[in-house]
């Protein structure tokens, strides 16, 4: 197995996360560095994800590397029935690094066992998307000056949202306080709340978030998707409860930043965009620096 691979956020210790924050800020100061000169990176997306792919390919290009790959499985040999094992074997002969997105959970861990070159997980089904977590962490680190002692509000779909789960796990080492705001049917799963309880990390659960924002340092919004509801009436009832409007940010802390993994639909009203506390577009740009930092770590650059 290739130990340099980055498959799950749980693969990195607190110190390694802090080291990556530091590297990311260096790339932000000076993004164009020729560290991947003469290197070939396979960017293989077994399901399309334009945002993540472009972010990775920007990071690779800014590091001076070259990209091969495919943008969805229909243009690859997978349609001919080739196994993931064979595809990865072949790619690891061609490339110096594999960036992979796959619809099946655990695909990235499996690929990292087969491959002779490092594998970076660009999302494996509903399981992990660790570079998203790293860019969330970098956004928090950059805007708050540190990852320690923050009050983090998570809003929306906390049941299926893998980004909030990974962020929760990663932040657990930094003495946080959590506030979870979601409809009853999309609550934070017990596996995560009991993890917090075991570690003595305070968390509070709410059904609405109109009057409680004044203590927040970070407000992490997510999409409440219609298809998650068995009952359409239930969805109609809650769909407007988890929408952030500009007026709600009045009286909040000056350091508060609003984050969202994007794409947004209607959960953040457009009038929030003009507020200086809105941070989701910069957050996406931070993804390039965070990914440059991760690539340089797994490649030992």
């Amino acid at each position, binding site marked *: 197995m290739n130990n340099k691979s980055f498959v*799950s956020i749980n693969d990195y210790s607190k110190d390694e996360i802090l080291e990556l924050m530091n590297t990311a800020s260096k790339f932000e100061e000076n993004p164009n560095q020729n560290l991947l000169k003469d290197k070939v990176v396979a960017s293989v997306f077994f399901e399309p994800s334009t945002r993540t792919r472009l972010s990775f390919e920007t990071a690779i290009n800014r590091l001076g590397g070259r990209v091969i790959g495919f943008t969805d499985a229909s243009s690859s040999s997978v349609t001919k029935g080739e*196994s*993931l*094992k064979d595809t990865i074997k072949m790619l690891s002969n061609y490339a110096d690094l594999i960036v992979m997105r*796959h*619809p*099946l*959970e*655990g*695909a990235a*861990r*499996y690929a990292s066992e087969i491959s002779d070159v490092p594998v970076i997980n660009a999302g*494996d*089904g*509903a*399981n*992990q998307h660790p570079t998203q977590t790293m860019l969330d962490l970098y956004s928090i680190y950059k805007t708050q000056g540190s990852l320690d002692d923050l009050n983090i509000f998570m809003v929306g779909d906390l049941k299926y949202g893998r980004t909030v789960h990974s962020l929760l796990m990663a932040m657990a080492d930094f003495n946080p306080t959590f506030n979870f705001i979601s409809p009853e049917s999309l609550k934070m799963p017990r*596996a995560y709340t009991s993890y917090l309880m075991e570690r003595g990390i305070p968390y509070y659960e709410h059904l609405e978030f109109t009057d409680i924002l004044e203590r927040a340092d970070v407000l992490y919004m997510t999409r409440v998707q219609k298809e998650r509801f068995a009952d359409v009436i239930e969805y109609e009832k809650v769909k407007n409860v988890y929408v952030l409007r500009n007026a709600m940010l009045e009286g909040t802390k000056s350091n508060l930043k609003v984050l969202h993994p994007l794409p947004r639909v209607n959960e953040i009203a457009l009038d929030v965009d003009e507020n200086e506390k809105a941070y989701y577009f910069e957050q996406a740009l931070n993804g390039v620096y965070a990914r440059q930092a991760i690539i340089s770590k797994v490649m030992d650059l």
Partner: protein
Amino acid sequence: MKKELQVSAIKNGTVIDHIPPHLLFKVIKLLELEKIKTAITIGNNYTSNKLGVKAIIKIEEKYFEDNEINKIALIIPNVKLSIIKNYEVVDKKVIEVPDKVVGLVECMNPKCITNHEDIVTRFKVTDKKEIDLKCLYCEKITDYNNIEIRK
């Protein structure tokens, strides 16, 4: 006074005792007893001080390897095994739940890669009391009620 046995004694072999009756057939399947050619005595719904009722399996001329027997620990935690030689119990073993389970159990997550490609499953036992198995690949928990043995 010597207690009368509910199932007749064996000369040499292994006795698996204190099996909860509802798990008996699962154990039989798990240990692939149908492949064993020596004499096997199976008793069910016998009275037990510990369990109320119990099942018992006695297998002549059979001594299990650790990796064979570890399987049962996932189904019946802390099951008791007696090794019999010449009608005497020469060894008693309590089978402990292992730390890792490799290639034995299916991952219950239908979207896990191990259910789509030919991969040896690997689990970490995250709770030895409740028997929770965490898949090394998809990181989902397969809990006791969903443990299915791989064919």
